[in-house]
């Protein structure tokens, strides 16, 4: 089975994020980028699927040269090959999904794993868009997934429970924490990944349907009132919640 994993390269969640001079893009100076945490679940699920049914796992990113670092990590985890669709300009999510789907069609992949969310702009859309563009069945935020012949049964998180969903291949699955435990790259894997060539080509460009107007810092909440350091503060808290906040 031909399996594709879409991989995004994002600022480490612990890093401080600064706004660039234009007031609408990121200042990437001094930022550490990592493989998007949700994409680790996607890579792990792809590798497990390959181990069970055979096949080949290809990673795809749309981005600049720095994305190679995350692709390299995915190769070290065990993916067979990687493609970087090079792009330096701004792609909105739909343009990005279009350029990914174009390459996935080229590769003839039957199964595509995508993270549920890229922890930069936190859109959570690329997987669902890809599915519609490819005309594949799909499930988002999967926390369980099993494949039996042509049929996939997956569970997705919803409010107050889980939906159990069935559909046939070809398919796109977006991965949520809980689906699996991503493996660490082994030393052997890291060595092997160094030798692999990341294929590079220009990303196909499509028209954007959205634009950034500005990036802002949220109004910093003035640190709240410390009401006390023992139980005597409780009645004041209850009073404020009733009278000031009016939430109880």
């Amino acid at each position, binding site marked *: 089975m031909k399996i594709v994993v879409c991989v995004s390269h994002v600022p480490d969640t612990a890093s401080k994020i600064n706004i660039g001079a234009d007031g609408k893009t990121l200042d990437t100076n001094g930022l550490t980028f990592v493989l998007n945490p949700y994409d680790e679940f996607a890579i792990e699920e792809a590798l497990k699927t390959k181990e069970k049914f055979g096949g080949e796992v290809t990673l795809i990113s749309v981005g600049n040269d720095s994305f190679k670092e995350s692709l390299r990590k995915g190769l070290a985890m065990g993916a067979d090959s990687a493609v970087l669709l090079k792009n330096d300009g701004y792609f909105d999510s739909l343009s990005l999904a279009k350029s990914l789907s174009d390459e996935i069609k080229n590769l003839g992949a039957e199964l595509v794993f995508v993270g549920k969310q890229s922890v930069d702009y936190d859109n959570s859309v690329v997987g669902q868009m890809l599915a519609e563009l490819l005309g594949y069945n799909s499930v988002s935020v999967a926390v369980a997934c099993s494949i039996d012949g042509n049929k996939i049964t997956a569970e997705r998180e919803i409010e107050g429970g889980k939906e159990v969903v069935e559909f046939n291949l070809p398919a796109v699955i977006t991965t949520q924490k809980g689906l699996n435990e991503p493996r660490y790259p082994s030393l052997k894997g890291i060595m092997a990944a160094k030798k692999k060539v990341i294929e590079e080509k220009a990303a196909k460009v499509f028209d954007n349907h959205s634009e*950034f107007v500005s990036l802002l810092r949220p109004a910093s909440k003035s640190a*709240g009132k410390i009401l006390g350091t023992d139980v005597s503060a409780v009645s004041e808290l209850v009073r404020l919640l009733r009278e000031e906040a009016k939430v*109880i």
Partner: protein
Amino acid sequence: MDNKFLVVLEQRNGIIKKSSFEIYAKAKEFSANTDAVLIGASIVDESQLKQAGVSEVTFIKNNDLENYSSSAYTNILVDFIKQNSYEFVFIANTALGKDLAPRLAAKLDCGITMDCTNLTEDAGNLLATRPVFAGKLLLQQKLTSTVKIFNIRPNSFGFTAGSEVETKINVKETSDICLSVKTVDVKKAGGKLDVAEADVIVSGGRGMKSAENFNHIESLASELNAAVGASRAVVDAGWRPHAEQVGQTGKTVSPNLYIAVGISGAIQHIAGMRSSKYIVAINKDKDAPIFQIADYGIVADAFDILPVLTEEIKKIKQ
């Protein structure tokens, strides 16, 4: 604005979601030309629509649509939006809305903005504001296509029912639906209130010390009709289920009141709850970062505070 607006309402188990009514009310503020659409097998209780002030709704009905199907919903709504030439489409950022909205954008080849917490009118368009980078920044975004999809974080605008109206329900039976993706079962998590939908949340962190000690959290939650939430540390320790996790790798919540007990306030936790209207922190470390975003804080041992707080709440309810 006099553009055609459409609000996609959502129901589960016969209950139409509060977030649906919230965005309907908001959309009407921008355009009197706002329609509503609901999909499902039946409308269990029409009075919900009346009480929420929905004057007219198109109900697209099929007996196989008791549960959500991404394929059926996508096809139905794409056709409906095209047939009626809607330009501004609104969907709440629920599990269903998050799955559905981007599918519509792909099929309609249009712009989309996700998880917006504010909308303002701007020269015949809407300017959307949404948290990015785990809420460290806000992005103001504009959609430039003719059709535009706005996905809205629940409880961003608040909703209080106004006066009752008569609701005109236009039922459209549809026979030809695409069930290539089908929900075959819904597993309920013990019928408990979900953090993503609760008005009040009481969350516990590693400071609770053990799974058993969460009975203190549960007692307080029960007095407040609140959902129980958790930090990742306690979910990873196996004390609480992942469904309760709040934060970057858990759920994003926006309740009226969020009480964080024994939670340090790591950036990834704050990412999931900073848009709560009121935040209370109980932590014995006065330097814990959670106090930076809390409205009210108590610097003390949670095990001293929780029983007394629970009693006080019980008292005022009597």
